[in-house]
């Protein structure tokens, strides 16, 4: 039996399709019995949907550090 913390972590992992078969099995078993984790799992899936919908963009780390460097030089 896995804990709620573990189940939620696996659930997050599963959002990126990287949970293994046995992890998924354990999680589903847990979710069947645990209402909190069931709700969490539904919300988590919804969050993935929202993130996809929003077509998020972000600067990469290198771009950010370049930007920082430029700002430092300027100030």
């Amino acid at each position, binding site marked *: 039996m896995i804990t709620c913390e573990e189940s*939620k*972590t*696996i*659930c*997050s*992992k599963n*959002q*990126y399709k*990287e949970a293994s078969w046995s992890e998924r099995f354990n999680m589903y078993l847990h979710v069947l019995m645990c209402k909190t984790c069931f709700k*969490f799992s539904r*919300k*988590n899936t*919804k*969050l993935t949907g*929202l*993130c996809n*919908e*929003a*077509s*998020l*963009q*972000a*600067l*990469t*780390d290198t*771009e*950010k550090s370049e*930007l*920082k460097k*430029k*700002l430092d030089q*300027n*100030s």
Partner: protein
Amino acid sequence: MNQEEKIRTPHQLNPTTWVDQYADYLYNYAISRVNDEELAKDLVQETFFAGLNSAKNFKGTASERTWLVAILKRKVIDHYRKSNSKKGKAEIRMSYNNEGEGSWLEEQIADPLSKSENDGIENEELGMAIHECISKLPSKQAKVFTMKTIHGMSTEDICNELSINPSNLWVLVFRARSSLMGCLNENWFAV
């Protein structure tokens, strides 16, 4: 600090944290308006420079972010002004094909029920809301979440770059996601 004191304390500018806190937020704002990644990057950079140069004019009535967004807004408008003045005048392009029925004017009117248009607006707001929430996360969580979700990097690459092990990574992702759910909750999880 209670609510009243918070209101009375003027906001402070702290340029050293700008890039980490606001770059992505501003970048999304810019990209949804100019539809060009390179240009959006330039606009964000210009915004930061302009912010630094006019920091002394900051009165502290608005938050740092609102102030920076206001500058970016001007930059976007300036960009469109410039690109229009090159052509000599503003132009409106309308494409019209004869295939539809009815008067062409009627067909040009925005459809208030149009799914794609309304979705566009809503998605933009959603994007800004998510970025606002990401900027409230602890920096390591924000970093991992951005790398994983937005840049779609592989687990291995992230682990190498941040020198953490995969189980650490997933715990960070889990914490980030739970905070995001809480943060987005009221407005976006209405089922």
